[in-house]
Protein backbone atom coordinates (compact mmCIF):
# COMPACT_ATOMS: atom_id res chain seq x y z
CA UNK A 1 0.00 0.00 0.00
CA UNK A 2 1.10 3.55 -0.62
CA UNK A 3 0.23 6.93 0.82
CA UNK A 4 -0.22 10.12 -1.19
CA UNK A 5 0.95 12.37 1.64
CA UNK A 6 4.15 10.35 1.94
CA UNK A 7 4.69 10.80 -1.78
CA UNK A 8 4.15 14.54 -1.35
CA UNK A 9 6.62 14.80 1.53
CA UNK A 10 9.41 13.01 -0.27
CA UNK A 11 8.82 14.52 -3.72
CA UNK A 12 8.49 18.13 -2.56
CA UNK A 13 11.77 17.67 -0.70
CA UNK A 14 13.43 16.37 -3.86
CA UNK A 15 12.03 19.27 -5.88
CA UNK A 16 13.13 21.70 -3.18
CA UNK A 17 16.77 20.75 -3.65
CA UNK A 18 16.76 21.81 -7.31
CA UNK A 19 14.42 24.80 -7.03
CA UNK A 20 15.27 27.28 -4.31
CA UNK A 21 12.18 29.38 -5.06
CA UNK A 22 10.06 26.73 -3.36
CA UNK A 23 9.00 27.71 0.17
CA UNK A 24 6.63 25.79 2.43
CA UNK A 25 4.01 27.25 4.73
CA UNK A 26 2.16 25.18 7.24
CA UNK A 27 -0.36 25.67 9.98
CA UNK A 28 0.63 23.39 12.84
CA UNK A 29 -0.15 20.24 10.86
CA UNK A 30 3.22 19.32 9.30
CA UNK A 31 3.19 15.82 10.76
CA UNK A 32 -0.31 15.26 9.34
CA UNK A 33 0.35 16.68 5.88
CA UNK A 34 3.80 15.02 5.91
CA UNK A 35 5.62 18.17 4.90
CA UNK A 36 7.96 17.76 7.88
CA UNK A 37 10.59 16.09 5.70
CA UNK A 38 10.99 19.37 3.80
CA UNK A 39 11.20 21.29 7.07
CA UNK A 40 14.05 19.08 8.28
CA UNK A 41 16.03 19.59 5.07
CA UNK A 42 15.26 23.25 4.35
CA UNK A 43 14.50 24.97 7.67
CA UNK A 44 15.13 28.42 6.14
CA UNK A 45 12.45 27.89 3.53
CA UNK A 46 9.85 26.45 5.85
CA UNK A 47 7.50 28.79 7.72
CA UNK A 48 5.32 27.77 10.59
CA UNK A 49 2.33 30.11 10.55
CA UNK A 50 0.44 28.54 13.42
CA UNK A 51 -3.28 27.94 13.45
CA UNK A 52 -4.22 30.83 11.17
CA UNK A 53 -5.12 29.63 7.68
CA UNK A 54 -6.40 32.97 6.37
CA UNK A 55 -3.11 34.60 7.28
CA UNK A 56 -1.16 31.68 5.83
CA UNK A 57 -2.81 32.07 2.42
CA UNK A 58 -2.30 35.86 2.51
CA UNK A 59 1.38 35.43 3.37
CA UNK A 60 1.68 32.97 0.47
CA UNK A 61 0.29 35.67 -1.82
CA UNK A 62 2.97 38.10 -0.62
CA UNK A 63 5.73 35.54 -1.12
CA UNK A 64 4.49 34.69 -4.62
CA UNK A 65 4.38 38.39 -5.54
CA UNK A 66 8.09 38.48 -4.69
CA UNK A 67 8.84 35.53 -7.00
CA UNK A 68 8.78 32.63 -4.56
CA UNK A 69 6.76 29.46 -5.22
CA UNK A 70 4.88 28.97 -1.95
CA UNK A 71 3.38 25.59 -1.10
CA UNK A 72 0.61 25.96 1.48
CA UNK A 73 -0.12 22.84 3.51
CA UNK A 74 -3.16 22.20 5.64
CA UNK A 75 -6.28 20.11 5.67
CA UNK A 76 -8.64 20.48 2.69
CA UNK A 77 -11.48 21.79 4.85
CA UNK A 78 -9.41 24.61 6.31
CA UNK A 79 -7.99 25.91 3.03
CA UNK A 80 -11.06 25.45 0.83
CA UNK A 81 -13.45 26.79 3.44
CA UNK A 82 -11.78 28.65 6.31
CA UNK A 83 -9.45 30.53 3.98
CA UNK A 84 -11.67 30.41 0.90
CA UNK A 85 -11.91 34.14 0.40
CA UNK A 86 -8.14 34.63 0.66
CA UNK A 87 -7.70 31.82 -1.86
CA UNK A 88 -10.17 33.44 -4.23
CA UNK A 89 -9.28 37.11 -3.82
CA UNK A 90 -5.58 37.07 -2.88
CA UNK A 91 -4.38 34.07 -4.91
CA UNK A 92 -6.76 33.33 -7.80
CA UNK A 93 -7.80 36.87 -8.73
CA UNK A 94 -4.20 38.13 -9.13
CA UNK A 95 -3.37 34.68 -10.64
CA UNK A 96 -0.44 34.08 -8.29
CA UNK A 97 1.93 31.13 -8.38
CA UNK A 98 0.79 29.51 -5.14
CA UNK A 99 0.28 25.77 -4.73
CA UNK A 100 -2.30 24.73 -2.14
CA UNK A 101 -1.52 21.15 -1.17
CA UNK A 102 -4.23 19.88 1.14
CA UNK A 103 -4.73 16.59 2.90
CA UNK A 104 -7.56 14.69 4.58
CA UNK A 105 -9.83 15.22 1.60
CA UNK A 106 -13.20 13.53 1.39
CA UNK A 107 -13.92 11.34 4.40
CA UNK A 108 -10.29 10.41 4.96
CA UNK A 109 -10.14 12.23 8.29
CA UNK A 110 -12.41 9.39 9.45
CA UNK A 111 -13.47 9.55 13.08
CA UNK A 112 -12.28 13.16 13.36
CA UNK A 113 -15.80 13.84 12.14
CA UNK A 114 -17.53 16.18 9.68
CA UNK A 115 -15.66 19.29 10.92
CA UNK A 116 -12.53 17.71 9.42
CA UNK A 117 -14.13 16.05 6.40
CA UNK A 118 -14.06 17.80 3.05
CA UNK A 119 -16.79 16.81 0.62
CA UNK A 120 -17.35 20.30 -0.82
CA UNK A 121 -13.86 21.46 -1.76
CA UNK A 122 -13.75 20.36 -5.41
CA UNK A 123 -16.99 22.22 -6.06
CA UNK A 124 -15.71 25.34 -4.34
CA UNK A 125 -12.30 25.31 -5.97
CA UNK A 126 -13.36 24.52 -9.51
CA UNK A 127 -15.77 27.46 -9.56
CA UNK A 128 -12.94 29.92 -8.89
CA UNK A 129 -11.48 31.45 -12.07
CA UNK A 130 -7.73 30.87 -12.71
CA UNK A 131 -7.64 27.91 -10.30
CA UNK A 132 -6.27 24.55 -11.44
CA UNK A 133 -7.73 21.64 -9.43
CA UNK A 134 -5.91 18.31 -9.22
CA UNK A 135 -6.89 15.14 -7.31
CA UNK A 136 -4.22 12.43 -7.60
CA UNK A 137 -5.13 8.85 -6.74
CA UNK A 138 -1.88 7.24 -5.62
CA UNK A 139 1.81 7.86 -4.96
CA UNK A 140 3.05 7.90 -8.57
CA UNK A 141 0.18 10.08 -9.75
CA UNK A 142 0.89 12.47 -6.86
CA UNK A 143 4.53 12.68 -7.93
CA UNK A 144 3.54 13.54 -11.50
CA UNK A 145 0.81 15.96 -10.36
CA UNK A 146 3.34 17.77 -8.19
CA UNK A 147 5.85 18.08 -11.03
CA UNK A 148 3.14 19.30 -13.40
CA UNK A 149 1.93 21.88 -10.87
CA UNK A 150 5.39 23.42 -10.60
CA UNK A 151 5.70 23.55 -14.39
CA UNK A 152 2.82 26.01 -14.64
CA UNK A 153 2.86 29.59 -13.36
CA UNK A 154 -0.41 29.99 -11.51
CA UNK A 155 -2.55 28.82 -8.61
CA UNK A 156 -3.07 25.08 -8.15
CA UNK A 157 -5.21 23.22 -5.60
CA UNK A 158 -3.94 19.67 -5.00
CA UNK A 159 -6.30 17.44 -3.03
CA UNK A 160 -4.83 14.48 -1.13
CA UNK A 161 -6.51 11.62 0.67
CA UNK A 162 -4.99 10.77 4.04
CA UNK A 163 -5.69 7.06 3.61
CA UNK A 164 -3.27 4.41 2.54
CA UNK A 165 -4.05 3.40 -1.02
CA UNK A 166 -2.96 0.80 -3.55
CA UNK A 167 -0.50 2.03 -6.16
CA UNK A 168 -2.07 1.74 -9.59
CA UNK A 169 -0.38 4.46 -11.60
CA UNK A 170 3.02 3.49 -12.99
CA UNK A 171 5.75 5.56 -14.57
CA UNK A 172 4.31 4.39 -17.92
CA UNK A 173 1.14 6.39 -17.19
CA UNK A 174 1.62 10.03 -17.99
CA UNK A 175 -0.30 12.66 -16.08
CA UNK A 176 -0.91 15.92 -17.91
CA UNK A 177 -2.91 18.87 -16.62
CA UNK A 178 -6.18 18.99 -18.55
CA UNK A 179 -5.94 15.37 -19.68
CA UNK A 180 -7.65 12.17 -18.55
CA UNK A 181 -5.55 9.09 -17.93
CA UNK A 182 -7.13 6.22 -19.86
CA UNK A 183 -6.37 3.33 -17.52
CA UNK A 184 -8.36 0.81 -19.54
CA UNK A 185 -10.17 0.89 -22.85
CA UNK A 186 -13.63 -0.68 -23.11
CA UNK A 187 -16.85 -0.54 -25.06
CA UNK A 188 -19.95 -1.14 -22.89
CA UNK A 189 -19.70 1.50 -20.17
CA UNK A 190 -17.36 4.28 -19.03
CA UNK A 191 -16.20 4.52 -15.42
CA UNK A 192 -14.73 7.90 -14.47
CA UNK A 193 -12.87 8.32 -11.19
CA UNK A 194 -10.91 10.98 -9.39
CA UNK A 195 -8.54 10.75 -6.43
CA UNK A 196 -8.23 7.38 -4.72
CA UNK A 197 -11.53 6.18 -6.20
CA UNK A 198 -9.27 5.23 -9.10
CA UNK A 199 -8.71 1.97 -7.21
CA UNK A 200 -12.44 1.24 -6.82
CA UNK A 201 -13.03 2.04 -10.50
CA UNK A 202 -10.35 -0.44 -11.56
CA UNK A 203 -11.68 -3.14 -9.25
CA UNK A 204 -15.24 -2.63 -10.46
CA UNK A 205 -13.94 -2.83 -14.02
CA UNK A 206 -12.17 -6.12 -13.24
CA UNK A 207 -15.34 -7.62 -11.74
CA UNK A 208 -17.52 -6.41 -14.61
CA UNK A 209 -15.22 -8.22 -16.97
CA UNK A 210 -14.61 -11.42 -14.99
CA UNK A 211 -18.06 -11.95 -13.48
CA UNK A 212 -20.32 -10.46 -16.13
CA UNK A 213 -18.36 -10.27 -19.38
CA UNK A 214 -18.91 -6.52 -19.57
CA UNK A 215 -16.23 -4.36 -21.15
CA UNK A 216 -15.65 -1.07 -19.30
CA UNK A 217 -13.48 1.90 -20.06
CA UNK A 218 -11.75 3.50 -17.05
CA UNK A 219 -10.79 7.18 -17.09
CA UNK A 220 -8.94 8.64 -14.12
CA UNK A 221 -9.60 12.39 -13.97
CA UNK A 222 -6.96 13.74 -11.59
CA UNK A 223 -7.24 16.97 -13.53
CA UNK A 224 -10.65 18.28 -12.47
CA UNK A 225 -9.86 21.68 -13.86
CA UNK A 226 -8.96 22.13 -16.62
CA UNK A 227 -11.20 19.21 -17.55
CA UNK A 228 -10.60 16.84 -20.46
CA UNK A 229 -13.91 17.33 -22.24
CA UNK A 230 -12.64 15.58 -25.38
CA UNK A 231 -11.81 12.30 -23.66
CA UNK A 232 -15.17 12.23 -21.86
CA UNK A 233 -17.07 13.06 -25.07
CA UNK A 234 -15.14 10.52 -27.09
CA UNK A 235 -15.73 7.77 -24.54
CA UNK A 236 -19.43 8.39 -23.98
CA UNK A 237 -20.07 8.51 -27.73
CA UNK A 238 -18.72 4.96 -27.88
CA UNK A 239 -20.18 3.44 -24.70
CA UNK A 240 -23.35 5.53 -24.27
CA UNK A 241 -23.24 5.14 -20.49
CA UNK A 242 -21.02 6.87 -17.97
CA UNK A 243 -20.57 6.49 -14.21
CA UNK A 244 -18.69 9.00 -12.06
CA UNK A 245 -17.07 7.80 -8.84
CA UNK A 246 -15.73 10.25 -6.29
CA UNK A 247 -15.18 10.75 -2.57
CA UNK A 248 -16.98 14.09 -2.65
CA UNK A 249 -20.51 15.41 -2.67
CA UNK A 250 -22.23 14.44 -5.92
CA UNK A 251 -23.03 18.16 -6.20
CA UNK A 252 -20.18 20.29 -7.52
CA UNK A 253 -17.48 17.68 -8.01
CA UNK A 254 -16.50 15.18 -10.68
CA UNK A 255 -20.12 14.10 -11.20
CA UNK A 256 -21.14 17.66 -11.92
CA UNK A 257 -18.19 18.24 -14.24
CA UNK A 258 -19.01 15.13 -16.30
CA UNK A 259 -22.75 15.92 -16.26
CA UNK A 260 -21.99 19.31 -17.77
CA UNK A 261 -20.18 17.61 -20.64
CA UNK A 262 -22.95 15.03 -21.15
CA UNK A 263 -25.60 17.73 -21.14
CA UNK A 264 -23.70 19.85 -23.62
CA UNK A 265 -22.97 17.08 -26.12
CA UNK A 266 -26.57 15.87 -25.76
CA UNK A 267 -25.90 12.16 -25.84
CA UNK A 268 -25.40 9.39 -23.30
CA UNK A 269 -26.72 8.50 -19.87
CA UNK A 270 -24.99 9.25 -16.59
CA UNK A 271 -25.15 8.28 -12.93
CA UNK A 272 -23.13 10.01 -10.24
CA UNK A 273 -21.71 7.94 -7.38
CA UNK A 274 -20.38 9.84 -4.42
CA UNK A 275 -21.66 11.29 -1.18
CA UNK A 276 -25.32 12.00 -1.60
CA UNK A 277 -25.40 15.58 -0.31
CA UNK A 278 -25.33 14.93 3.42
CA UNK A 279 -22.91 15.14 6.33
CA UNK A 280 -21.97 11.71 7.55
CA UNK A 281 -24.26 10.71 10.43
CA UNK A 282 -22.03 8.10 12.01
CA UNK A 283 -18.51 7.79 13.38
CA UNK A 284 -15.72 5.58 12.18
CA UNK A 285 -12.54 4.96 10.26
CA UNK A 286 -12.34 6.22 6.67
CA UNK A 287 -12.88 2.62 5.47
CA UNK A 288 -15.97 2.32 7.66
CA UNK A 289 -17.36 5.63 6.43
CA UNK A 290 -16.78 4.72 2.78
CA UNK A 291 -18.72 1.53 3.37
CA UNK A 292 -21.46 3.50 5.09
CA UNK A 293 -21.65 5.80 2.05
CA UNK A 294 -21.74 2.84 -0.41
CA UNK A 295 -18.36 3.81 -1.85
CA UNK A 296 -16.81 0.34 -1.75
CA UNK A 297 -16.12 -1.84 -4.78
CA UNK A 298 -19.12 -4.12 -4.21
CA UNK A 299 -21.57 -1.31 -3.52
CA UNK A 300 -20.41 0.57 -6.63
CA UNK A 301 -20.58 -2.62 -8.72
CA UNK A 302 -24.23 -3.11 -7.71
CA UNK A 303 -25.12 0.43 -8.80
CA UNK A 304 -23.27 0.00 -12.09
CA UNK A 305 -25.04 -3.29 -12.87
CA UNK A 306 -28.41 -1.72 -12.11
CA UNK A 307 -27.54 1.20 -14.37
CA UNK A 308 -26.59 -1.21 -17.16
CA UNK A 309 -30.10 -2.68 -16.98
CA UNK A 310 -31.72 0.64 -17.79
Amino acid at each position, binding site marked *: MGNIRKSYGSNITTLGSTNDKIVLLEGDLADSTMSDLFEAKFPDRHFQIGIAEQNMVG*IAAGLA*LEGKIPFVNSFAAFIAMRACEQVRTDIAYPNLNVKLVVSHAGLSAGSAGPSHHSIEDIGIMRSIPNMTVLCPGDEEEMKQVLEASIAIDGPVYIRMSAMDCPNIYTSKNKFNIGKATILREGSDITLVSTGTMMNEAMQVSDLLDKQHGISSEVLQMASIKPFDIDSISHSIRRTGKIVTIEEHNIIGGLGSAVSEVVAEIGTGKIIRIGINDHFTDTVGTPEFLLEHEFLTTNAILKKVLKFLET
Partner: protein
Amino acid sequence: MREFERLENITKEARYLIIKTLIDSGMGHPGGSLSSVEILTALFFKIMNINPEDPGLNDRDRFIMSKGHGCLGLSTILNLRGFLSDKELASFRKNGGSLSAHVDMKKMPGVDMSTGSLGHGLSVGVGRALSAKINKQNHKVYVLMGDGETQEGSIWEAAMSAAHYNLDNLVGIVDRNKVQQCGNTEEIMSLEPYFDKWTAFNWDVKEIDGHDINQVVSALSQDNQESKPKLILCNTVKGKGVSFMEGDNKWHGGGAIKEFAKEAMQEVKLESK
Protein backbone atom coordinates in the same frame (compact mmCIF):
# COMPACT_ATOMS: atom_id res chain seq x y z
CA MET B 1 10.15 76.28 -1.29
CA ARG B 2 10.24 74.79 2.14
CA GLU B 3 9.67 71.05 2.23
CA PHE B 4 6.65 71.47 4.50
CA GLU B 5 4.98 73.80 2.04
CA ARG B 6 5.74 71.49 -0.88
CA LEU B 7 4.01 68.58 0.85
CA GLU B 8 1.17 70.75 2.14
CA ASN B 9 0.48 71.91 -1.41
CA ILE B 10 0.31 68.32 -2.59
CA THR B 11 -2.26 67.50 0.10
CA LYS B 12 -4.36 70.45 -1.11
CA GLU B 13 -4.15 69.29 -4.71
CA ALA B 14 -5.04 65.77 -3.65
CA ARG B 15 -8.14 66.90 -1.76
CA TYR B 16 -9.22 68.99 -4.73
CA LEU B 17 -8.75 66.02 -7.09
CA ILE B 18 -10.58 63.64 -4.74
CA ILE B 19 -13.67 65.86 -4.73
CA LYS B 20 -13.43 66.64 -8.44
CA THR B 21 -13.16 62.94 -9.32
CA LEU B 22 -15.96 62.07 -6.91
CA ILE B 23 -18.30 64.64 -8.44
CA ASP B 24 -17.35 63.49 -11.90
CA SER B 25 -17.99 59.80 -11.22
CA GLY B 26 -20.87 60.30 -8.79
CA MET B 27 -19.48 57.52 -6.61
CA GLY B 28 -16.50 56.82 -4.37
CA HIS B 29 -15.41 56.75 -0.76
CA PRO B 30 -14.55 60.34 0.16
CA GLY B 31 -14.44 59.93 3.96
CA GLY B 32 -11.56 57.47 4.16
CA SER B 33 -9.85 58.98 1.13
CA LEU B 34 -9.71 62.44 2.68
CA SER B 35 -8.48 61.08 6.01
CA SER B 36 -5.52 59.31 4.33
CA VAL B 37 -4.22 62.25 2.31
CA GLU B 38 -1.29 63.26 4.53
CA ILE B 39 -0.24 59.63 5.03
CA LEU B 40 -0.23 58.89 1.29
CA THR B 41 1.45 62.21 0.46
CA ALA B 42 4.28 61.51 2.91
CA LEU B 43 4.77 57.97 1.60
CA PHE B 44 4.63 58.71 -2.13
CA PHE B 45 6.33 62.12 -2.15
CA LYS B 46 8.89 61.82 0.62
CA ILE B 47 9.45 58.43 2.20
CA MET B 48 9.29 55.60 -0.31
CA ASN B 49 12.02 54.72 -2.78
CA ILE B 50 9.85 54.47 -5.91
CA ASN B 51 10.04 55.49 -9.55
CA PRO B 52 6.99 56.06 -11.76
CA GLU B 53 9.21 55.37 -14.78
CA ASP B 54 10.03 51.93 -13.40
CA PRO B 55 7.21 50.85 -11.07
CA GLY B 56 8.54 47.28 -10.75
CA LEU B 57 12.00 48.36 -9.58
CA ASN B 58 13.44 45.43 -7.63
CA ASP B 59 14.69 47.37 -4.61
CA ARG B 60 11.68 49.73 -4.43
CA ASP B 61 9.76 50.05 -1.21
CA ARG B 62 6.49 48.13 -1.34
CA PHE B 63 3.09 49.65 -0.66
CA ILE B 64 -0.15 47.80 0.08
CA MET B 65 -3.42 49.68 0.53
CA SER B 66 -5.20 47.24 2.82
CA LYS B 67 -8.11 49.68 3.10
CA GLY B 68 -8.81 49.07 -0.57
CA HIS B 69 -11.91 51.28 -0.56
CA GLY B 70 -9.55 54.25 -0.19
CA CYS B 71 -8.90 53.77 -3.92
CA LEU B 72 -10.24 57.23 -4.76
CA GLY B 73 -7.64 58.92 -2.56
CA LEU B 74 -4.85 56.59 -3.62
CA SER B 75 -5.67 57.12 -7.31
CA THR B 76 -5.32 60.88 -6.98
CA ILE B 77 -1.95 60.50 -5.25
CA LEU B 78 -0.78 58.06 -7.95
CA ASN B 79 -1.91 60.57 -10.55
CA LEU B 80 -0.06 63.43 -8.91
CA ARG B 81 3.07 61.28 -8.55
CA GLY B 82 3.00 60.23 -12.21
CA PHE B 83 1.90 56.60 -11.89
CA LEU B 84 -1.57 57.20 -13.36
CA SER B 85 -2.51 59.47 -16.26
CA ASP B 86 -5.24 62.13 -16.07
CA LYS B 87 -7.27 59.98 -18.46
CA GLU B 88 -6.99 56.95 -16.17
CA LEU B 89 -8.01 58.99 -13.14
CA ALA B 90 -10.94 60.43 -15.08
CA SER B 91 -12.16 56.86 -15.74
CA PHE B 92 -12.70 56.24 -12.02
CA ARG B 93 -15.77 53.99 -11.59
CA LYS B 94 -16.95 54.68 -15.12
CA ASN B 95 -18.22 52.03 -17.54
CA GLY B 96 -15.23 50.54 -19.34
CA GLY B 97 -12.82 52.49 -17.13
CA SER B 98 -9.67 51.14 -15.52
CA LEU B 99 -10.27 52.20 -11.91
CA SER B 100 -12.97 50.66 -9.73
CA ALA B 101 -13.90 51.55 -6.17
CA HIS B 102 -11.21 49.17 -4.92
CA VAL B 103 -7.51 48.87 -5.61
CA ASP B 104 -6.35 46.70 -8.54
CA MET B 105 -2.56 46.40 -8.70
CA LYS B 106 -2.70 45.31 -12.34
CA LYS B 107 -4.33 48.57 -13.34
CA MET B 108 -2.54 50.75 -10.80
CA PRO B 109 1.26 50.76 -11.10
CA GLY B 110 2.90 51.79 -7.83
CA VAL B 111 0.68 49.51 -5.77
CA ASP B 112 1.76 46.07 -4.60
CA MET B 113 -1.51 44.20 -4.03
CA SER B 114 -5.09 44.19 -5.19
CA THR B 115 -7.35 44.85 -2.24
CA GLY B 116 -10.94 45.55 -1.37
CA SER B 117 -12.09 42.80 0.91
CA LEU B 118 -11.03 44.11 4.31
CA GLY B 119 -8.42 42.56 6.55
CA HIS B 120 -6.33 40.96 3.80
CA GLY B 121 -3.50 43.40 3.18
CA LEU B 122 -1.40 42.92 6.28
CA SER B 123 -0.91 39.18 5.63
CA VAL B 124 0.29 39.94 2.11
CA GLY B 125 2.65 42.54 3.57
CA VAL B 126 4.00 39.90 5.95
CA GLY B 127 4.64 37.61 2.97
CA ARG B 128 6.45 40.34 1.06
CA ALA B 129 8.49 41.29 4.12
CA LEU B 130 9.39 37.65 4.77
CA SER B 131 10.59 37.32 1.19
CA ALA B 132 12.79 40.40 1.60
CA LYS B 133 14.32 38.76 4.70
CA ILE B 134 14.98 35.51 2.80
CA ASN B 135 16.56 37.46 -0.07
CA LYS B 136 18.46 39.80 2.29
CA GLN B 137 16.91 42.85 0.60
CA ASN B 138 16.77 46.17 2.42
CA HIS B 139 13.56 47.75 1.18
CA LYS B 140 10.56 48.31 3.44
CA VAL B 141 6.99 47.12 3.13
CA TYR B 142 4.28 49.65 4.04
CA VAL B 143 0.69 48.57 4.69
CA LEU B 144 -2.01 51.17 5.18
CA MET B 145 -5.05 49.91 7.10
CA GLY B 146 -8.33 51.51 8.01
CA ASP B 147 -9.23 51.37 11.68
CA GLY B 148 -12.60 49.74 10.98
CA GLU B 149 -10.98 46.96 8.98
CA THR B 150 -8.94 45.92 12.00
CA GLN B 151 -12.16 44.45 13.35
CA GLU B 152 -11.31 41.57 10.97
CA GLY B 153 -9.63 38.71 12.82
CA SER B 154 -7.19 38.10 9.98
CA ILE B 155 -5.49 41.42 10.79
CA TRP B 156 -4.56 40.07 14.20
CA GLU B 157 -3.38 36.75 12.77
CA ALA B 158 -1.09 38.79 10.54
CA ALA B 159 -0.01 41.06 13.41
CA MET B 160 0.96 38.01 15.46
CA SER B 161 3.01 36.50 12.63
CA ALA B 162 4.82 39.78 11.82
CA ALA B 163 6.06 40.01 15.39
CA HIS B 164 6.86 36.29 15.52
CA TYR B 165 9.12 36.61 12.47
CA ASN B 166 10.73 39.83 13.79
CA LEU B 167 9.76 41.76 10.66
CA ASP B 168 11.52 45.05 11.30
CA ASN B 169 11.17 45.78 7.56
CA LEU B 170 7.39 45.99 7.88
CA VAL B 171 5.54 49.22 8.70
CA GLY B 172 1.82 49.14 9.40
CA ILE B 173 -0.08 52.40 9.33
CA VAL B 174 -3.59 52.76 10.69
CA ASP B 175 -5.79 55.59 9.47
CA ARG B 176 -7.61 55.96 12.79
CA ASN B 177 -10.48 58.17 11.66
CA LYS B 178 -12.82 56.52 14.17
CA VAL B 179 -15.73 56.28 11.76
CA GLN B 180 -16.85 53.32 9.69
CA GLN B 181 -19.74 52.84 7.29
CA CYS B 182 -22.55 52.65 9.83
CA GLY B 183 -21.20 54.82 12.64
CA ASN B 184 -18.38 55.38 15.09
CA THR B 185 -15.96 52.50 15.59
CA GLU B 186 -16.47 52.54 19.33
CA GLU B 187 -20.23 52.12 18.88
CA ILE B 188 -20.07 49.54 16.09
CA MET B 189 -17.34 47.36 17.64
CA SER B 190 -14.99 49.09 20.01
CA LEU B 191 -11.29 49.05 19.18
CA GLU B 192 -9.95 50.76 22.29
CA PRO B 193 -7.56 50.41 24.00
CA TYR B 194 -6.13 50.47 20.52
CA PHE B 195 -2.53 51.51 21.16
CA ASP B 196 -2.30 48.85 23.83
CA LYS B 197 -3.68 46.17 21.53
CA TRP B 198 -0.88 46.66 18.98
CA THR B 199 1.68 46.96 21.75
CA ALA B 200 0.45 43.69 23.25
CA PHE B 201 0.95 42.05 19.86
CA ASN B 202 4.60 43.04 20.23
CA TRP B 203 4.68 45.85 17.68
CA ASP B 204 6.66 49.05 18.12
CA VAL B 205 3.78 51.55 18.22
CA LYS B 206 3.93 55.30 17.57
CA GLU B 207 0.83 57.48 17.92
CA ILE B 208 0.68 60.71 15.95
CA ASP B 209 -1.62 63.32 14.44
CA GLY B 210 -2.20 61.90 10.98
CA HIS B 211 -2.99 65.30 9.50
CA ASP B 212 0.27 66.92 10.65
CA ILE B 213 2.51 66.24 7.68
CA ASN B 214 5.66 66.86 9.75
CA GLN B 215 4.61 64.28 12.33
CA VAL B 216 3.72 61.77 9.62
CA VAL B 217 7.04 62.21 7.82
CA SER B 218 8.96 62.06 11.06
CA ALA B 219 7.25 58.84 12.25
CA LEU B 220 7.73 57.18 8.87
CA SER B 221 11.40 58.26 8.69
CA GLN B 222 12.44 56.59 11.89
CA ASP B 223 13.81 53.09 11.56
CA ASN B 224 11.91 50.27 13.15
CA GLN B 225 13.00 49.21 16.58
CA GLU B 226 15.29 46.22 16.00
CA SER B 227 13.42 42.96 15.38
CA LYS B 228 9.99 44.55 15.59
CA PRO B 229 7.35 45.52 13.08
CA LYS B 230 6.32 49.15 13.48
CA LEU B 231 2.77 50.46 13.74
CA ILE B 232 2.04 54.13 13.19
CA LEU B 233 -1.29 54.95 14.70
CA CYS B 234 -2.46 58.04 12.84
CA ASN B 235 -5.28 59.89 14.52
CA THR B 236 -7.26 61.40 11.69
CA VAL B 237 -10.66 62.86 10.87
CA LYS B 238 -12.91 61.07 8.43
CA GLY B 239 -13.70 63.42 5.55
CA LYS B 240 -10.91 65.82 6.56
CA GLY B 241 -10.95 69.08 4.61
CA VAL B 242 -14.64 69.21 3.73
CA SER B 243 -16.37 70.54 6.83
CA PHE B 244 -19.73 68.87 6.35
CA MET B 245 -18.11 65.50 5.66
CA GLU B 246 -15.87 65.56 8.72
CA GLY B 247 -16.69 62.84 11.23
CA ASP B 248 -19.94 61.95 9.47
CA ASN B 249 -20.32 58.30 8.52
CA LYS B 250 -22.78 59.34 5.81
CA TRP B 251 -19.69 60.29 3.79
CA HIS B 252 -17.99 56.88 4.08
CA GLY B 253 -19.47 56.35 0.62
CA GLY B 254 -20.10 59.36 -1.58
CA GLY B 255 -23.48 58.66 -3.12
CA ALA B 256 -24.89 62.01 -2.00
CA ILE B 257 -22.20 64.08 -3.70
CA LYS B 258 -24.33 65.36 -6.59
CA GLU B 259 -26.49 67.27 -4.16
CA PHE B 260 -23.52 68.81 -2.35
CA ALA B 261 -21.11 69.20 -5.27
CA LYS B 262 -20.96 72.97 -5.19
CA GLU B 263 -20.39 73.21 -1.44
CA ALA B 264 -17.73 70.49 -1.49
CA MET B 265 -15.86 72.09 -4.38
CA GLN B 266 -15.94 75.44 -2.61
CA GLU B 267 -14.07 73.95 0.37
CA VAL B 268 -11.24 72.31 -1.58
CA LYS B 269 -10.79 74.72 -4.46
CA LEU B 270 -7.24 75.71 -5.25
CA GLU B 271 -6.18 79.33 -5.54
CA SER B 272 -4.51 78.53 -8.85
CA LYS B 273 -7.62 76.95 -10.41
